[in-house]
């Protein structure tokens, strides 16, 4: 088995994993005590965090359905994490039987779990790769095998980019992926933000500290910064907005205001 250069030399389950913490926020049990302890500290630092995660999931599902409504049935979901209920391929498949999905993650446990869950699904696969190495993603086997890169693809960077600070040059990697995709492709981004919800900056800083103490990065970005990620894409209506405001399917007033701590947007490759 070829081991990617970035892959860890072992798995330390005493170190929290952002994908298993995410699962915990969503009420799942695909997590270990270290993940839960970190997630509880995160919720303590930023009460309402699980709500944001749910709103994020809801946005992701709306975006997937939007893509299908635009005729885009191929999905490349980077940073897919632990596959739980209502994942991209389930949502997409519910809207179109044609849908094909390639998940990408660099967490070996998430990859192994995904592989087990997706074993019987011929139109969905998982690729062990890193967002910072776009060439290994677009050149990877599942992408080549499942996706037709001559037809539009929906690239999902959902709740991913805030794990990379500017030193990681996320914009460059997005550009690398963009260049491999044909016009008409969609870029779906959601991103942690405190700017979008007044009075949350202090909590956001505490949350970032929690992630940092677990060896991860969590960067809040402004609307302008998130919008900049759409370089080379035309933003579809309503642009980059707080999570629940992106093409809501139910009255927004029902939502807990905390879910406004996060930006979402979809762009179409020109």
């Amino acid at each position, binding site marked *: 088995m070829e081991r990617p250069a970035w892959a860890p030399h072992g*798995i330390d389950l005493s170190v929290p994993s952002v994908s298993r913490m995410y699962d915990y926020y969503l009420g799942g049990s*695909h997590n*270990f005590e270290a993940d839960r302890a970190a997630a509880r500290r995160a919720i303590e630092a930023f009460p309402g965090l699980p709500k944001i995660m*749910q709103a994020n999931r809801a946005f992701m599902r709306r975006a997937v359905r939007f893509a299908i409504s635009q005729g885009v049935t191929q999905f490349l979901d980077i940073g897919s994490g632990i596959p739980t209920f209502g994942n991209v391929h389930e949502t997409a498949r519910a809207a179109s039987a044609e849908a094909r999905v390639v998940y990408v993650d660099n967490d070996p446990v998430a990859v192994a*779990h995904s592989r*087990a869950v997706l074993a019987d699904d011929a139109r969905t696969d998982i690729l062990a790769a890193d967002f910072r190495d776009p060439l290994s993603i677009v050149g990877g086997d599942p992408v080549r095998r499942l996706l037709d890169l001559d037809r539009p693809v929906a690239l999902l960077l959902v709740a991913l980019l805030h794990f990379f600070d500017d030193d990681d040059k996320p914009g460059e990697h997005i550009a690398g992926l963009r260049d491999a995709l044909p016009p008409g492709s969609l870029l779906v981004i959601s991103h942690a933000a405190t700017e979008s919800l007044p009075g949350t900056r202090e909590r956001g800083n505490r949350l970032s500290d929690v992630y940092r103490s677990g060896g991860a990065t969590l960067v809040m970005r402004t609307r302008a910064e998130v919008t900049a990620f759409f370089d080379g894409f035309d933003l579809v209506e309503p642009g980059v907005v707080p999570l629940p405001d992106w093409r809501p399917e139910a009255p927004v007033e029902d939502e807990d205001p905390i879910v406004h701590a996060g930006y979402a947007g979809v762009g179409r490759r020109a």
Partner: protein
Amino acid sequence: MSPSPSGPAGGSLADLGTEPPDGPRRFARILCRAVFPATATSMTSAEFEELLVDLTTRLATALHARPFDPTPARAVGEALVAAHCTAVDSLPRVLGVIDAYLVLYCADPATLTPDEARNRCARLQHAIAAGFAQALQERTRREQESLSRAAITAQTEIAEALHESETRFRAVFNDAAIGIAIADMAGNILNVNDALARMFGGSAHQVRSRNLLDLTHPEDSPDIWRMQRELMRGEREHYRVEKSYARADGTVLWTNLTVSLLRDADGEPRYMMSMTEDISERRLLHLRLRYQATHDALTDLPNRSLFFERLEQALSPGSGYGRVGLCYLDLDGFKAVNDSLGHAVGDQLLIAVAERLQSCTAGSGQMLARIGGDEFVALIVDPPTPRAVTELAERALEALASPVELGGRELMVRASIGVVEGPTRDLTAAEVLRSADITMYRAKAAGGNRFALADPDSDARAISRHHLTHHLPAALRGAEFFIEYQPLVAMRDGSLEGAEALVRWSHPRHGVLGPDRFIPLAEHTGLIVPLGRWVLREAVRQACQWQVRGIGGPRPLKVNVNLSPRQLHHPELVEETVTVLEEAGLPPSSLCLEVTETAMIRADENELRPLRELADLGVGIALDDFGTGYSNLANLRRLPASTLKLDRSFTLGLQRAPADPVDLKIVEGIVSLAHTLELSVTVEGVETSIQAERLRDLGCDSAQGWYYARPGPPEQLPEAV
């Protein structure tokens, strides 16, 4: 159970399987509004509400069932878990709404008393909670298990990948042609590969018991030790040196050694790795190639390039030497040995000469090189006295004094030596060699078998042989050659018979040079062939012109052209000569080719054939310089010659009055013999009227010399005689 259209729920519950009545739908809407925000479901709220309508219908049915059985409510709890209503406050919200509104919206008061309804509602809630708890527990266990399984799978995969990658690297390590050792920071060797063990001619164990610092051998050079210390302090990532090791068996191992620092994840120096490349073979090959490039294959002496390298080294300002001495030695008559005895003998002779000379130059600071065919040069760096250099030249001549025995034959070896000695600061290598060359020629011109000392004045006048050789081709292309004609006179009436063509070089720097200065060089380099061809064509053209203009009276003028030994061997001699004659339209009988007696008598029948063919065509052949080559007179018959040109040495004695009687007799004898063989006789070097008279009396047919005319341009010929 009878239908009750007036029930609080506003619809009949009896008609299951069709559109649920108003009551349960309204209840479901309330439930949805309360619970949906607390779910993590992937359903939209509309979809979720549809699910809740179904669950409500089941609860309403169970509420009215007789006998009452709360079990179906467990499935409702399970369904809620399946719909991910598992957030901490999901269940309380569900139960709260059921407790408050289920009876109100879904109970039929006609069939259930309020107490009964409340009682049943409570028991349904217990069942929902039980079903919820069980489903959640199962889901949790399932998820935990699948996650653990994934973790184990991932760990196994990583371990396998690590193992494979380690196996791969181990294979690279073990099978590498390069010797690798890994040591801790104290130099203790932890791993060595087979290649390294092989290089040191021992087992891996032997090498491993050593210290890396032994391999880096600090005593070799302070530089290595310095770089090694920098590496150990983490200030240097690697260094590379060329190093030799003495093996246990006494042989020497030459290596390219690279020592690198390996750091741990925190960047701290952890290991040192040495990579050793065995370059012994390559080095040997390099040395061998270098030796071959700098030594003469025949004598094994240093060659021209090594000699120059040493000389330049000695003359360079930083050399620390004050003076150099140089003996430039050229064998006298070596060409004759090669020509008469063959190259194999010539080579043997050179080897013998090299050996003898080497015995004279064994001192320190002395070097003997062979820089050309029969040219040797001895270099003395910092001679104790200038005299030491001439002593060396004397010793060299002495060493060559006794004959060399080769294949039962004793060969006399004679040599001319040019000696140069002087301060290094004033000289360049090219100047030294040029001066030595010129001086050697002076020794040779003085009769050979001697040495001459360099003298700046004669140097300045002399023209280096190398210089001329170098410039000959360009001179030929640049039309720097021209021809002068010396009249040939018929002795019986003093009339003009013809002229000998004599080539000159109008050298741009050295003025007009006679053939003696460059013909031997041209002969040596082979340039004589194109030069001779040019002379022949030019002379024939000139003769033709004279004939056309009727110069020389009724008898057509002839032209004599010299032919060198090399031209004699040229395969196209006959063809070219005929072509030249035909192109110019000159009758063959108007051309006479002069070949020296030495070249002619040395020629075998094969080499004479072209001359014979030319003679048959009517071309005259003259035996030039007759009397210098010790001809077997009997052999004259077989030569294709038509004329003897008597060497000027015979005529010298006839200048005196009275004439040397022996010379008179000799010339008389030769003329008589020549005439017997039907050869005409031409004499050279006639300078006085007495000479001319005597030679005519002796029966000579033709003459040339200053008495008649000096060589001059062709247009002077008509008035020359």
